[in-house]
């Protein structure tokens, strides 16, 4: 058993199972499994998931579309921006 998404505790087996069920994009997998939605926002798992998708569906890794990157780059306390003018 390989843990792929450590924030949401998702294994390679679970990802492969969802790919077999028809979830064929990063965006689909993200929304059904919560991969890339945790504290690291995919910094730890995006590339691994893309690699699994590429392998399972036999498509070049450069053609795997990554979900949108959004701010903040790393988690910041609410007060860090709230206090600043």
């Amino acid at each position, binding site marked *: 058993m390989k843990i792929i998404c450590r924030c949401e505790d998702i294994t390679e087996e679970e990802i492969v199972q969802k790919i077999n069920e028809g979830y064929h994009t990063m*965006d689909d997998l993200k*929304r059904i499994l919560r991969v890339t*939605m945790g504290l690291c926002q995919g910094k730890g798992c995006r590339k691994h998931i893309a690699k699994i998708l590429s392998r399972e569906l036999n498509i070049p890794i450069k053609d795997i579309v990554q979900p949108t990157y959004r701010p903040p780059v790393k988690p910041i306390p*609410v*007060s860090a921006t*709230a*206090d*600043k003018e």
Partner: protein
Amino acid sequence: MNNTSDAIIIGGGIIGCATGYYLTKKGFKVNLLERAYLTAGSTGRCIGGIRQQFSTPLSIKVAMESMKKFGTMRDELKQDVEFHQGGYLFLAHSEEKKQTYMKLIEIQREMGIDVSFIGLSEIERLVPGIDPTGLLGGAYCPTDAQANPFLIVDGYAKAIKERGNVFPYKDVTQINVQKEKVVSVTTRDNETYFAPVVINAAGPFARDIAQMVDIDIQVYPERHEAMITEQMERFFDMMVVDYRPDGCYFNQKWPHGSVIGCYTPIPNVPGYDLGTSFEFAREMGRRMARLIPRLGNTKIIRHWSGSYEMTPDGNPILDKSDVDGFWIVGGMCGHGFMLGPEIGWLAAEYITEGKAPYDITEFALHRDFTGKEVMK
């Protein structure tokens, strides 16, 4: 033939998928075309709140019926949808707001909603650590709720596939009309899909889709930003709504406890842009921490945006059009997710039976748009 069906739905959000689900239940073969992935438009960008506290008898009824459908969804769709009835609390920071809520509560209670105006001590019990400065009380409905938009749309889509198809990444570029009647739609990759019924459930793009059959509908997207924090122990159960001009609203997601929230920008931000602004990050943090100071220590992990599909009066459009077979279901004004199940059911009933199960003339395409939904 995969390319022919009883109905084509344009849009894979809650409205399109709920409509497709109920049409499928009525025996229709549905082909659903989504320009990106399911929920990519607005549904997947919403914060997942579901409330019944609206201001007019029709909107209250639709919201109450929708809530019933959320309540039985787990069994219907045979999967968990993270539905949780934690309530909605509308805070009153002025006598005027309090009076508005009191009047609405009367209407809402008459229709059978368990809602009441609660005082400060009750609020402080329900929301530990809330700053009571200037607070006069709030309208609280404990049966209002939240759920997971992705899982619900996924469940609806699976049901549609039992009879028909769900096609992601199919961007509709043309709707083909013969003798004032829809016959087919064509997608960017030059596929053509045939059906006597075409439903425009394109959310923020509803106006563009309608223009393909030369109909102008009054649906205009506005950008709303949202943010989510790291996961934490849940310490308040409801959506807290601060309706001051510089207010915001947020709750803790069920089951993992992240605080998710947004506010309505003044002035509004019309258009399709789904970027993010630093101003929102700063303001949202300030507004949240002003209300519950301990939230100042929590960390924001993501900040994104989505569209509200606004109509001039704040009510949806659910109607047939002047082109035979072309239906419009949209203009949800930020209430698409919470009202979606009932709107989908209403649309399916209207389409299959030829008339709506109850009076929805307030949602008509050709109506006087000067009224206003107060509980925006």
